[in-house]
């Protein structure tokens, strides 16, 4: 059994003080990065990269992957606590996570998210160890046709998010899709729709838009609706009452978590698709297979578990193309390639042969990182609940200030702060008109992928490939089903009231 030998080799090369310490540091930094709105996992990994130049390759890689992994989890904390996804991958977590907080059950959401993230991370790691070579061919088999199909599939979640008035959901998503066409064209060297504003040449920066739409939009909306002026006492009582989550509730979610983790890992494998799409697809999948789909969007634990498991599962997945093909699977792994090159290591299949100790050590470190994340997360949850309990009158201005910094430091640009503010207004306007805001973000995330790959496919010429290539056909069919199923279900089963 070569794999066991290799794992043993990896284990022994990991078992030194520095790498182990780096795991702990990485997890702490990662959770912090995830919690702070504006710092996405890839920015977090990039920020830590310079610090690793002086280390040995093992410690450097272990530190960066620990940051990557736990930042994906950390993003869910603010998503649950204050409706601000700390990272793009946590957008889907807000749907039910923040609802639970509003009901005074933040601890339930936080515990579910932590458990699901850990399960996702572990499943991702196991799949990475056992199947990275066969999965590499999956990563390779995706051409523009499949990417386009995947983007469309991701978009279809709007029909299950839409609620009572699907048209409003479609409008919101089309606004996102239109806004993302602002900026550099995907095929010609010119910028569309910039209206003479030079800062728009590269398009609307995604993270400020995300923060504005969710955090500021929510704050404006709840200020308008008195919520903060009421005494926070009743909320506090509810939080105290729901301080622990019965383990059997988590145990009930086991299959869902496993399934979502696998979805997350598989989509994570596809370079450039990323964990965010995986969270949407997992959420959609959870809703359509759930016994109580009507609870989704109103505080369902399943709605928290599925995207979180998928999000952390995607970390293991994204390492597959990095290690087997030398291609970054996500923005964070693109930085990891830089880290490998600094240490004169060439990412790709040769790495397995030349440095098995390093590769398998990295694999094993994922297990440790997940366990450290679980332990620190359990400690952290107590702190997060304290923050949620703080009076909203104090919390809201602080969240606004945090949103401003978060938008600022992505490009050190005050223009982005303006974007954040503008999207805050947009979010508020939409919310008070009864439009969901999540589809806007969905459009912003997936619009580029859909356009780039549709147009690349058109340039390549043969459109029949969309239906003759198996993966493309399967995904497009899934997209059709997932778009129309909720509508048909509604037609034939009017909701009991």
């Amino acid at each position, binding site marked *: 059994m070569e794999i066991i030998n290799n794992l043993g080799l990896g284990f022994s090369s990991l078992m030194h003080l520095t790498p182990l310490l780096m795991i702990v540091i990485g997890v702490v930094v990662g959770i912090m990065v995830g919690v702070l709105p504006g710092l996405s996992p890839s920015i977090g990994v*990039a920020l830590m990269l310079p610090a690793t130049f002086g280390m040995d390759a093992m410690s450097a890689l272990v530190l960066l992957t620990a940051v990557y992994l736990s930042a994906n989890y950390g993003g869910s904390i603010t998503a649950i606590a204050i409706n601000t996804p700390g990272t793009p991958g946590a957008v889907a977590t807000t749907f039910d996570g923040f609802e639970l907080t509003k009901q005074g059950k933040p601890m339930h959401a936080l515990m579910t998210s932590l458990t699901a993230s850990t399960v996702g991370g572990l499943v991702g790691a196991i799949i990475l160890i056992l199947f990275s070579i066969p999965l590499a061919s999956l990563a390779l088999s995706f051409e523009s046709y499949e990417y386009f199909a995947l983007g469309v599939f991701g978009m279809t979640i709007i029909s299950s998010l839409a609620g009572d008035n699907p048209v409003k959901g479609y409008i919101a998503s089309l606004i996102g899709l*239109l806004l993302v066409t602002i900026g550099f064209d995907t095929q010609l*060297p010119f910028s569309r729709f910039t209206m003479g504003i030079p800062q728009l040449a590269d398009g609307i920066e995604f993270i400020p838009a995300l923060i504005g739409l969710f955090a500021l939009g929510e704050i404006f909306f709840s*200020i308008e609706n008195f919520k903060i002026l009421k005494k926070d006492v009743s909320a506090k009582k509810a939080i105290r009452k729901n301080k622990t989550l019965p383990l059997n509730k988590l145990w009930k979610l086991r299959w869902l978590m496993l399934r979502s983790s696998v979805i997350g890992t598989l989509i994570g494998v596809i*370079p450039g698709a990323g964990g965010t799409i995986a969270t949407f697809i997992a959420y959609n999948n959870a809703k359509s297979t759930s016994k109580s789909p009507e609870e989704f969007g109103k505080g369902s634990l399943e709605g928290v578990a599925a995207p979180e498991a998928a999000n952390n599962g995607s970390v293991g997945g994204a390492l597959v193309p990095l290690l087997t093909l030398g291609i970054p699977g996500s923005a964070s792994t693109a930085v990891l390639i830089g880290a490998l090159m600094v240490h004169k290591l060439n990412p790709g299949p040769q790495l397995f042969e030349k440095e098995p100790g390093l590769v398998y050590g990295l694999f094993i470190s994922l297990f440790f990182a997940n366990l450290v994340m679980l332990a620190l997360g359990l400690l952290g949850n107590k702190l997060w609940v304290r923050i949620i309990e703080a009076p909203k009158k104090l919390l809201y201005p602080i969240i606004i200030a945090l949103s401003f*910094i978060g938008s600022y430091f992505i490009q*050190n640009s005050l223009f982005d702060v303006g974007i954040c503010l503008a999207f805050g207004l947009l979010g508020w306007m939409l919310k008070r*008109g009864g439009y969901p805001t999540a589809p806007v973000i969905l459009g912003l995330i997936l619009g580029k992928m859909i356009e780039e790959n549709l147009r*690349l496919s058109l*340039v390549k010429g043969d459109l029949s490939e969309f239906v003759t290539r198996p993966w493309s056909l399967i995904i497009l069919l899934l997209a059709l089903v997932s778009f129309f199923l909720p509508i048909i279900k509604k037609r034939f089963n009017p909701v009991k009231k």
Partner: protein
Amino acid sequence: MRVYKLIAAIFFLIYLGLLFYLYRGLNRSEAYPNKPITIVVHSKPGSSIDLMSRKVAEVARKYCKEPLIVENHPGTQGIVAMQYVMDKKPDGYTMLGVTKSFLSTLVVNKSHVAISDFLFLANMIADPEAIITNNKSGLNTIRDVVSQANELNGKQVWIGPGTGSRDYLMALKCWDVMGIKAQWVDYKSGPQSVLAMLRNEAPVYVGNPSDILGKDDLKIVAIAARSRLESLPDVPTFKESGYDLDESMWRGFALKKGTLPQAVEYLSEVLKKVSTDPQWIEYCQGAYSFPDYLESKTFSKKIDDEMSETIDALQKAGLLNNYVKKGSILLAAMALLFGLIIFFVLWLLIGFNRSRFTYSLLLSGLFIWVSVFFYYQTLLFAIPAGLNITSPALIPRLWSILLFITSIWNLINVLKEKNQPVKRGRIKLVAEILLALLIYFIAIPEMGYFVSTPFFLLAGFYILKYRKWPVMFTYSIGFVLFSYVVFQLLLKIDLPLGALFV
């Protein structure tokens, strides 16, 4: 409350100390250099120019009194970084990492920055362009590529990132020199192109030698350099096959024009010493590049020559167009502004009515207006003919038509709805918060983050009717101290200090 008073007092003292430190810390003036020198890089950490700059910073420690610190300012193919350097004082403490791709960026993007705004210090490295194939394709030499191109009679596909990029111009040059015709397909990014090559989707990829690192299936057919790379002794040059091509992605450093002469001299000296350091040479070879030191004069001359060459090439490729019909941008911006103003005025006027009906109507109207606005803009696109592309108008038109249809559908729904009064919201409170936010937004660049934030937070607490002053002070100053520790000290992110402290 007494505890809060004490904490507030302690925080306030620390805060004053911090302000004093920031104020003093940036106003030392002695002989150059007396503080760390920043290298501004236009791409994310881990990119080629980032890694190069960090290596230079590392080696320069031996030769420079103060450390060099790399800062990343990605965006708009480098315009963001260039603009950032332009906005700094020419005191020699901000250096820009420059690369050949900046030439096309400056030609194509209509921005305020020009090549003449910079003083080019030195070139450090040359990363040769390379023609890469897949082993399975049977294209092992330049001759194979040429004969296949002739066989396919213009149908051979060459791929790479970006129409109009350096790689694209390299492809055009190759076709010219090799006397062949081929098709360019834009794969948007380097990694996506490499993936396509790994599945043998296209015969030829224009990239750099480091693209094949660790990938056994890919093969470099030739590099466009004067000599072979020491680290890749088996890879021939174009010249050996009889084609005169010498194209490389150079990377070096520049300063803002008008920088103090002693700083220019000092930094040139440091870079020169770095360029001969064995550690540096070893790095260049590891990155499959040539150490290629050029001092300021030669470097500037090279840039001048290549600039006019780039303009010619882009012109010849039909890419130096006005892609949007003239005058329309201003018109469009005015239309947008006009629309928004009308929307807000209407909103305010009708807002007093506070019925859901009027608001919904207004919102549907806005969406219809947005869809028409975007569609109208696409009509102004002027797309050059003869390129292997699809129209940039395609997708925006699709979305705007769909938005138009759904908005009309929504409008009908709204009109069918009965006039439902909505419960009175605290619009005034939101307006006050928005005003505070706006003032904060305007104040940050002037007063700096550390001064304006406590004021904003206090105002925010006050507006939301929180009135326990010691607690308010504790939280507002505590937050600023927290953000200093977390962002500035731990994560090394610079928060804007404002005009007062720079």
